[in-house]
């Protein structure tokens, strides 16, 4: 079916960015690739690997300070590098389509989505105004948008992320391109939506003999969806080949590491079983209950109190010392609200939460909560936002010590060193500003800060989802290790059932504020009772088919 002639070839492409007052940074170094029609090539790498730059090199939309310094990009027998902008533009958006990373941000908030989806047709003079409208509405139907007529006039903020991504796919497909560059097309979406979008893309490839350059950080997605895989690290191609070969024989230390960090071949049942053994060896079955929630609920009043929105509809659970409760849900499931209730950051509308028998209280200015926070600490999702950029690591770690009146100056200094050591940070980090640290290092600092007052309970709000996959692995290992050593109790919140399976003893699945399943991790994951959980399991990219016990319902 696929012609032997490659549609896109990159031959020794190098690109660099000019930075004011610094030597230029090379982000792509001698990269060679080729892609045939009807094929999907996955470009895998972490942030800073140059994978997005490679995508932009193909579309010709490098930022102003970036340029290709060596090599050739050839598309359909025509060399693109070195073409004048005018000719380049004639190809971009017509023969080469592009799907951006964050669909909600990828659309102009001030224009109706229908008008935007017609822009490629307009830019290339392919259709008049009325015809554009007709074609766009037809395409909206094709990409699975219900009621395309209404959606044509809608604005991005009125649509969900998945719908926006479908609009963008429709826009990219409107000109009948031969190549699609999809830059992390599903990263910003909920897992179940991710799957449907990837399915849609797959269908389009088969239907139109389309070639797709799929840029992703997730080797699981790549393995599941691509015919070929190319792994980039620091701008260098470290491994490329047929998907099956790469997965079976990474042949390269970095690819190997990526493979281990992905959920490829992941089996929820196995993970839950392994976790069960690990906990059983450490925690006695009659360990005391530390956290107890009774019918805790939260209702918000929107539109000046006219409409009530139930964020959490009444959750009850108990967590024993040294164990983890995993809280799973997609966006809008109420998991963030539940976290805030558990940490005393917002008062419940009904019900109560107790830690060690003491009620979790809330006060707008934090008055009277100090006693609670000796026992309960929190780690936030984004370590860039949760650490004050104008303080040093040492003062961040000392703050909870002085706040909870722990030790004198000398003891505090020793405790800081101890915390850094516990979280695997070099002692030299202590006097640096957080702005100088990498994402992984910052998250370690945030964990160290949470450990400072010797808490019993850690509330972990998506602690790894803002991190690169390999760093994610390291932080998860650190959390597992800390729990073993300090017998901490974790309330672990995540949208990723795979991560939860590995870390949790009990699992609570939330959907639209309701608890849909709750029970021992091995039960929920091996024998899900609801379709929703089955679908969540099936959405884990690259997971072993056995994980999805029952067939998924669309």
């Amino acid at each position, binding site marked *: 079916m696929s012609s032997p002639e490659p549609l896109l070839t990159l031959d020794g492409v190098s690109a660099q960015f000019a930075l004011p007052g610094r030597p230029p940074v090379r982000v792509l170094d001698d990269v060679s690739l080729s892609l045939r029609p009807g094929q999907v090539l996955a470009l895998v790498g972490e942030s800073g690997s140059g994978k997005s730059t490679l995508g932009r090199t193909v579309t010709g939309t490098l930022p102003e300070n970036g340029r290709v310094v060596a090599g050739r990009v050839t598309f359909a027998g025509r060399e693109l590098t070195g073409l004048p902008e005018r000719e380049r*533009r004639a190809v971009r*958006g017509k023969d080469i389509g592009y799907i*951006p990373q964050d669909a909600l941000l990828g659309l102009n908030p001030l224009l109706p989505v229908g008008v935007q989806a017609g*822009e490629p047709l307009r830019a290339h003079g392919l259709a008049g105004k009325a015809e554009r409208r007709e074609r766009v509405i037809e395409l909206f139907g094709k990409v699975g948008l219900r009621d395309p007529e209404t959606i044509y006039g809608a*604005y991005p903020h009125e649509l969900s992320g998945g719908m926006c991504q479908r609009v963008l796919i429709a*826009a990219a497909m409107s000109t009948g391109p031969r190549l699609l560059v999809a830059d992390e097309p599903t990263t910003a979406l909920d897992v179940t939506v991710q799957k449907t979008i990837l399915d849609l893309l797959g269908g389009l490839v088969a239907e139109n003999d389309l070639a797709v350059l799929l840029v992703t950080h997730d080797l699981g997605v790549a393995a599941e969806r691509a015919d070929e895989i190319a792994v980039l690290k620091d701008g260098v191609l470290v491994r490329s080949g047929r998907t099956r070969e790469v997965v079976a024989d990474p042949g390269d230390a970095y690819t190997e590491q990526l493979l281990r960090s992905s959920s490829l071949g992941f089996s929820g049942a196995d993970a839950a079983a392994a976790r069960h053994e690990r906990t059983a060896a450490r925690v006695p079955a009659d360990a005391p209950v530390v956290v107890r929630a009774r019918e805790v609920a939260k209702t918000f009043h929107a539109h000046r109190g006219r409409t009530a929105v139930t964020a959490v509809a009444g959750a009850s659970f108990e967590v024993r010392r040294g164990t983890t409760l995993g809280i799973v849900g997609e966006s809008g499931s109420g998991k963030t609200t539940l976290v805030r209730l558990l940490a005393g950051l917002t008062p419940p509308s009904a019900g109560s939460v107790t830690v060690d028998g003491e009620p979790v209280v809330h006060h707008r200015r934090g008055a009277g909560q100090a006693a609670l926070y000796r026992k309960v600490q929190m780690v936030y999702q984004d370590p860039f936002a949760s650490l004050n950029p104008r303080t040093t690591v040492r003062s961040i770690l000392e703050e909870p010590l002085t706040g909870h009146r722990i030790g004198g100056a000398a003891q505090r200094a020793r405790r800081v060193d101890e915390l850094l050591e516990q979280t695997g940070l070099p002692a030299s980090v202590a006097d640096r500003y957080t702005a100088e640290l990498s994402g992984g290092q910052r998250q370690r600092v945030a964990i160290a800060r949470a450990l400072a007052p010797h808490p019993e309970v850690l509330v972990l709000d998506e602690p790894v989802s803002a991190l690169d996959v390999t760093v994610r692995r390291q932080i998860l290992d650190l959390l597992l290790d800390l729990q073993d050593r300090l017998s901490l109790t974790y309330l672990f919140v995540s949208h990723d059932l795979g991560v939860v399976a590995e870390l949790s003893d009990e699992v609570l699945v939330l959907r639209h504020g309701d608890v849909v399943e709750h029970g021992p991790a091995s039960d929920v994951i091996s024998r899900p009772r609801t379709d929703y959980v089955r679908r969540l399991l099936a959405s884990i990219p690259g997971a072993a088919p056995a994980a999805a016990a029952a067939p998924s319902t669309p």
Partner: protein
Amino acid sequence: MLRYGLLKYAVRRLGYAAIVVWGAFTGAFFLLYIVPGDAAGGLTMGASGGDVEQLLAEQRELLGLDRPVLVQYGDALSGAVLGDFGDSLYQRRPAVEVFFEAFPATLQLAFLGLALAVVLGVALSVVIELTDWRWLRELLVSLPPVAVSLPPFLVALVLVQLVAFRLGWIDAFGDQTFLGLLVASLSIAVAGGGTISQLLTANLRGALTSPYIETARSWGLSRFDVVVRHALRNASLPVITALGTLIGVMVGGTVLTETVFSRPGIGRLVVDSVNGRDMPVVLVAVTVSALIFVTVNFVVDLLYPLVDKRIRLEGR
């Protein structure tokens, strides 16, 4: 439902506007009437010898300044609501009449200045983003900061020197032609245009690095389309908000421009009133300025949701 929400919004906005105008009036009243050296002092300036005290007392009684403060304030407020701010001390006519005689010329100047500022500022920012020549861009980018650093009276003086004395196109004193008006409004438009352009350039920069612009570029849109059709719309939102403040700056600027160009308007009137402590006129000036401000901001608020559909009036 929607109608009802809009109505409620309008009532709330009107209430707010009333509070602001009342606040401005009250603040100005107490500032002007309570501080030592009242209006009677202004009238008796020039008198000397032993009869100054007597003259002062006479004048005070005449103006009602010997009554308790709150009574004076109550009278003034109830008068002001009916459009009566008392008589100008010098012209012996209602201050409102004096003020509104001069006002149309100033309003004309201020709004023409604002329009020029918007045109100049927006054009400059767009050209900065569209030009391919690096040197031209660098040059143009340096213009707005210079424009806002120029004292408005200096710009006016330079314009008078060039257009009136060198070129002889307009009269240096009180030119009544449209060209004269245009040149005068240009002198207040420079700073306003610089402000708009600074704001807009920064916002355009921000907008042009946002993901939706990346998308638009990937669709093969021309640079002009990307900048004007997609980025400008988003970048202009803060500028629309700033218009409310800018009109105030324009009205303030007219005071200087009218002085330099010797144009009729409230400029000279206000300065003279301040110098002669003609409080009723100053009070009118302050109150009317506040009225203009709330009106312009109300219009801006109404315009905003037309451009940005995410904003709903009822929610504001």
